[in-house]
């Protein structure tokens, strides 16, 4: 070892004798044979050298070590013991047989969905749907493209109906006084009660149903009534069509079904009609109307829509001209319109200048388009307005082209309010011994002056059939869980009379559930019949002698409806006296000073039946964007008059006492621009006590305001209270702040300058980039959204939620700004708060930017550009920095702040789309352009060795959209529909000025205002 002068410490520590050359020499001499040494010190100090070495060079020490356990041996031993420890910890796995089907069920291939046609009922009317089934589990509902009420589209309620099937709160067992009983026990008791009624001809028997269009159920009830002539059948639907029926009765002296063909209507006038949402034909109407609202370069003709309305509805929002009025003014306007259109016997009432101008212009427009227009009265408008609308349509020769009359679709059209009144009177008089309620929830929905709670208890035996142990079940001894429409057989008629079959996709999840058909069967003393046998049996009898039944049955099941079963148009003459009566009533309709209440069913939870559906609760309501609540809607001016602070005007929630017809409730306010100042709109259906864990306590119950005398409207007083209730809206800013987000113009503008939208903002060219762009050899997916036809109905949002396993988060989380919808509909008001000039809807989903700001900032590459231009989200890789969301100018990314997905409730596991990952906590998610659907089609196409055809891939939002606003496809193919739409002159990119080069582009909104009414 050489001496290093720079390391004085080394010298200091060496034992004195080490450097002794004599000792070394001595050693050398003493040894014999070859002897190797590394240094003098080693040679000299054999014994102490290892210690010295270890001290100075600890790393070399191990190699020098010879005795004892070597390092190598130590590792050997520890490795062996680890391996042994691993062996010892093995446990025997439980024995489990995994065997394939012995008989493979036909067409069932794991991983491949099957579609079955079936029928969803709303308000008793049929809507054709196709249900997607994965290994026997229904996972998604789509519209039935052949069904006249759907034509492939759905509404939000239909999309959410899937969740009802899997709702863990559904009642699961038959109960009597809350304890579990059997169907046999029920039918025994019921049988006894019925037998006792035989001699009385059933005088004490009452059946209460909702609206019935089902031929089978109607026949059963008729059979029952034939057997017990004094028994009575009542129908009750709280958001029913009494006004429509009564209007027809008034105009034609008989029940007549009215349906419209908006495809043929150049001018549509809505008198308080929200035909996009309300009524049995809504989806079809939206489709027909929108087909005439798609301006294209080669065909720029549009229909025109006028709306006179009391509430703010989607039709009003889509209208080219809208007049917000009180119900009394609506009567005057309807009269004036009738008078100007030349309806005989109508005197023109006095109107203010603005209304006069409006009516004159509308009437002139209508008269210019005789036979090509439609005047539509709202489902909840007064019956006199309906009668007058019939008269106007007749005068304008619209009947037979745009307005079609048929025989009633309902099995037994009745004045349902009168029917329920009759039932209550009978109950009070003690004339009811056995009351069977199939589906309705009268305790919650009956007019409050009926005091149904005390009346019902006068009936000794009360049986309730319903999907939930709801408010009515609470007041009935017996409660029978009702099957979901995906679990039982049935039939119903659509808005045009088309007979549709309800085909189950799954055995009832709860074996004790029964359908209304089975309950009626029990009344007919055939308690064991299955709903399949009942329906098939009925049709076998019905079709006797009309060819082979099996072929007919299979065809019908396959299609979901019976071909050519729509009701034929009938010619019906107006009853002049009825019209006279209507005119007289309308002329006398004068509202007093002060606000008028307008009651409406909620757009999401309807009459309250969907209150426990989380998807619908969380779906931001069209226009207000409120979630989880209803509210008292008033205009900003009325809000100011009530002395609301700016904060309360913006965020709502100030509680008022509503006094109406002797009843009063406390409810929170929400400001909705576009309402008439004298109108207060309230949606009922909320405030459920026994809806289930989701719906209980959400919102306030407006039913107490409804009395038999005042079901829809009347004078109301508002008194402010100091209380506040938080209301949660998903949108807090309602104006575009001067930014060109929704680009809108008139038809005239579009014709003179088709590229007007592009000129409203900057858009860098695709080539304006620093680095070469991606190359797409095969497909480049893109989406086009036509803002002209979007009505903001939310069907796409609900469809997206159902398709992509999107969790709900609850009111509190929504309030914190954590809504999870991948697709949202932005709603902007244009104009000042006093009179909104326009309402704009803009569906916004991931724009799949060519130069995506999110992609560059993700530190782990969890969001990446696909070879087909998709902006893919890799959930497994996401660590949740949320940087991508911050950097997303469209704010379409959604984050799992908590573990929102319920992966524990067993029944919900069945519901999930198996093709889409269920996301866990801490992961970002967003619209994927339904990549699972793209891949499914790609596999099919590759198997057949052909390119994917245009229109083959349909995203969930596109499929649901009733107005065909959303079009998806390959933009690499210039002949594809989406590429052609993107080539339209009014195509533009949202925030294109940021050079994100979005794959989603919008077709500017083109309205078709009447030049006579345009602001000068």
């Amino acid at each position, binding site marked *: 070892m050489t001496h290093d002068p720079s390391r004085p410490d080394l010298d200091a520590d060496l034992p004195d004798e080490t450097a002794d050359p004599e000792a070394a020499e001595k050693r050398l001499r003493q040894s014999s044979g070859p002897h190797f040494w590394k240094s003098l010190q080693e040679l000299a100090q054999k014994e102490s050298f290892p210690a010295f070495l270890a001290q100075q060079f600890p790393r070399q020490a191990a190699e020098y070590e010879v005795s004892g356990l070597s390092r190598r041996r130590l590792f050997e031993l520890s490795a062996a013991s680890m391996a042994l420890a691993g062996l010892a910890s093995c446990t025997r796995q439980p024995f489990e047989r995994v065997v394939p089907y012995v008989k493979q069920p036909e067409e069932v291939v794991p991983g491949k969905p099957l579609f079955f046609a079936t029928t969803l009922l709303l308000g008793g009317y049929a809507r054709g749907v196709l249900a997607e089934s994965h290994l026997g589990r229904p996972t998604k509902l789509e519209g039935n493209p052949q069904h006249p009420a759907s034509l492939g589209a759905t509404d939000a309620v239909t999309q959410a109906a899937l969740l009802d099937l899997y709702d863990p709160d559904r009642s699961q067992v038959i109960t009597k006084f809350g304890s579990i009983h059997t169907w046999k026990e029920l039918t025994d008791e019921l049988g006894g009660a019925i037998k006792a009624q035989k001699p009385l001809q059933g005088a004490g028997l009452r059946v209460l149903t909702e609206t019935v269009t089902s031929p089978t159920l109607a026949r059963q009830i008729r059979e029952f009534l034939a057997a017990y002539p004094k028994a009575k059948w009542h129908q009750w639907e709280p958001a029913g069509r009494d006004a429509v029926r009564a209007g027809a009765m008034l105009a034609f002296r008989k029940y007549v079904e009215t349906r419209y063909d908006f495809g043929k209507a150049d001018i549509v006038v809505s008198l308080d009609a929200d035909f996009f949402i309300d009524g049995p034909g809504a989806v079809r109407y939206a489709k027909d109307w929108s087909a005439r609202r798609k301006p294209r370069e080669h065909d720029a003709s549009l229909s025109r829509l006028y709306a006179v309305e009391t509430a703010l509805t989607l039709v009003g929002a889509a209208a080219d001209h809208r007049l917000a009025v009180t119900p009394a003014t609506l009567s005057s306007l309807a009269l004036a319109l009738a008078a100007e259109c030349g309806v005989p016997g109508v005197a023109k009432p006095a109107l203010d200048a603005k209304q006069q101008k409006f009516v004159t212009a509308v009437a002139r427009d209508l008269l210019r388009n005789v036979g090509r227009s439609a005047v539509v009265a709202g489902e909840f408008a007064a019956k006199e307005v309906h009668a007058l609308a019939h008269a106007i349509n007749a005068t304008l020769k619209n009947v037979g082209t745009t307005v079609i009359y048929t025989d009633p679709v309902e099995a037994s059209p009745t004045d349902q309010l009168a029917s329920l009144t009759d039932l209550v009177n009978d109950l009070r008089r003690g004339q009811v011994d056995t009351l069977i309620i199939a589906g309705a929830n009268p305790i919650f929905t009956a007019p409050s002056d009926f005091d149904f709670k005390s009346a019902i208890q006068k009936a000794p035996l009360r049986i309730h059939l319903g999907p939930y142990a709801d408010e009515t079940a609470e007041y009935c001894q017996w409660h029978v869980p009702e099957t979901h429409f995906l679990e039982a057989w049935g039939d119903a008629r659509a808005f045009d009379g088309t007979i549709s079959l309800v085909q189950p996709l799954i055995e009832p999840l709860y074996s004790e559930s029964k359908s209304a058909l089975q309950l009626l069967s029990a009344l007919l003393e055939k308690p064991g019949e299955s709903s399949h046998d009942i329906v098939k049996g009925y049709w076998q009898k019905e079709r006797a002698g009309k060819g082979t039944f099996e072929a007919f049955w299979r065809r019908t099941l396959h299609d979901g409806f019976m071909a050519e079963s729509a009701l034929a148009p009938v010619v019906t003459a107006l009853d002049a006296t009825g019209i006279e009566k209507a005119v007289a009533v309308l002329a006398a309709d004068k509202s007093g000073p002060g606000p008028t209440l307008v009651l409406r069913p909620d757009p999401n939870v309807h009459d309250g039946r969907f209150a426990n559906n989380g998807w619908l609760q969380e779906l931001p309501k069209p226009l207000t964007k409120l979630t989880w609540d209803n509210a008292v809607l008033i205009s900003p001016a009325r809000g100011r008059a009530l002395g609301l602070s700016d904060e309360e005007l913006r965020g709502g929630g100030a509680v008022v006492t509503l006094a109406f017809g002797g009843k009063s409730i406390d409810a929170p306010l929400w400001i909705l621009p576009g309402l008439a100042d004298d109108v207060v709109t309230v949606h009922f259906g909320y405030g459920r006590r026994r809806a289930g864990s989701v719906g209980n306590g959400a919102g306030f119950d407006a039913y107490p305001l409804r009395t038999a005398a005042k079901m829809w409207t009347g004078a109301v007083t508002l008194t402010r209270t100091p209380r506040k209730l938080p209301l949660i809206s998903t949108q807090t800013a309602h104006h575009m702040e001067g930014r060109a987000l929704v680009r809108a113009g008139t038809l005239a503008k579009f014709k003179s300058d088709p590229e007007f939208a592009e000129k409203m903002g900057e858009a860098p060219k695709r080539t304006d980039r620093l680095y070469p762009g991606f190359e797409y050899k095969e497909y480049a997916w893109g989406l086009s959204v036509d803002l002209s036809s979007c009505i903001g109905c939310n069907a796409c949002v609900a469809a997206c939620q159902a398709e992509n396993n999107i969790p709900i988060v609850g009111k509190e989380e929504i309030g914190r700004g954590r809504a999870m919808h991948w697709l949202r509909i*932005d709603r902007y008001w244009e104009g000042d708060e006093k009179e909104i000039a326009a309402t704009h809807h803009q569906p916004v989903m991931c724009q799949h930017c060519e130069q995506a700001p999110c992609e560059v900032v993700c*530190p782990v590459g969890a969001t990446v550009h696909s070879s087909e231009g998709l902006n893919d989200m890799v959930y497994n890789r996401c*660590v949740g920095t*949320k940087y991508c969301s911050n950097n997303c*100018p469209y704010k379409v990314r959604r*984050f799992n702040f908590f573990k929102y997905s319920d992966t524990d409730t067993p029944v919900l596991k069945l519901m999930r789309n198996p093709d889409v990952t269920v996301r866990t906590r801490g992961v970002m998610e967003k619209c994927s352009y339904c990549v699972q659907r793209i891949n499914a089609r790609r596999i099919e196409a590759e198997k057949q060795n052909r390119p994917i055809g245009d229109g083959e891939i349909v995203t969930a939002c596109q499929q649901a959209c009733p107005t065909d606003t959303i079009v998806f496809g390959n933009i690499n193919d210039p002949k594809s529909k989406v590429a052609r739409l993107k080539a339209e002159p009014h195509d533009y990119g949202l925030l294109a000025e940021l050079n994100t080069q979005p794959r989603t582009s919008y077709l500017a909104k083109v309205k078709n205002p009447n030049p006579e009414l345009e602001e000068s």
Partner: protein
Amino acid sequence: MNPPGPPSINVPPSRPSNPRSIPARISIPVVAPGYTTATLTDKISSAVLQKTPRWWYPAFGVAFAFLNLFFIAVGWLFIKGIGIWGINIPVAWGWDIVNFVWWVGIGHAGTLISAILLLFRQQWRTSINRFAEAMTIFAVACAAQYPILHLGRPWLFFWLMPYPSSMGTWPQFRSPLIWDVFAVSTYAITSLLFWYVGLLPDLATLRDRSKSKVAKLVYGFGAMGWRGSAAHWHNYETAYLLLAGLATPLVLSVHTVVSFDFAVGVVPGWHTTIFPPYFVAGAVFSGFAMVMSLSIPLRKLFHLEDFITMRHLHNMAKVMLVTGLIVAYGYFIEIFMAFYSGNEHDIAMIENRFFGPYWFYYAMLWACNIVIPQLLWFRKIRDNIALLFVISIIVNVGMWLERFVIIVTSLHRDFLPSSWGMYHGTFWDISTYLGTLGLFFSLLFLFIRFLPAISISEMRTILPEAKLEDK
């Protein structure tokens, strides 16, 4: 092992210092007169070697209580998820990233003092560099919590680091967050090494001077066999200088990279090129404010007025004034550029800062960072220790507000009004912040109790005695 020798043995034979570099016109010396190497060593090491002062227990107790709050807040965070914070869409970063940037910024003064001022031979840095460096390390430790805690899935934080994964995946190197990982970890390691290397001679001194066996063992272990030989000093000096050289660019790079987190984004209010210099200036600004906030009570409690003199406070105040003006320039340029560019989103952003719902934060930011620091122009105010302390606290608050304004008010109203929202920190946001303050002060109190808060070996070199030797 060496017996405890006379202190003079530890004086290095040469120091790259020059007494003439101190301009004569500065009247206040960096060390009060009358100290010899021995008395100086006594004085500084006594803070460590003597019995724990009474005030230390409650002070540490409070800090430790907050540290426990941190553990609770983080525990709950791990159990429930980051939803317990107030973040949302659009404001997906809130107090977490505000605090991250704030803590990283505070760290800057330490490195600046120890590295840049060392290279510039600013001798006045000597008495404050040790605890400024400690402050840096503790602040970076606090800052480093947030990038991990703010993750949706914090247990996967290592995916941000390049390691040979069996899946063949790498981080996405275009992301500023990856640059952050490198910048902050480099910074943390370099600062720690720098601090520890500087501590070696002092640890040896403590080893030699402490009477308890445990202390001897622990300090001895830390001293890594330092015996003060010429070779030790030689290697030490070389390493120290090299580390100073390494740390110098970090002062600029770390906060530049942190500013990229924002500047690279498209969000109005983030997307500006002035961010790197403005962030660095802001960091030094807040860092010096923090050194000031800490040194004023420290010198009082340990009677170190002789070593941390008015000269130090003056100099720090001046640095604050300069960096504060650079920050103010940044604010003005932001406003100017919004209108000069005519970008509607940028203009809306500025208007929102002034008149939007967070206007109060913005107004307070101006008051704390621009208006109040102007008082430091006046010598009288720089002489007033109490006022200096108050101003330094105000600047710290102001710099926190600056990050809040940049992050929250930019995000809460960006491009699409439909997605606008509001952000409020929750109890857990506040708890986590207070918790990191607890972590910081717990470490700081342990540091001043168990390690010399002022570098003994370096202080010796600036004594007149050492300078005589130099000649």
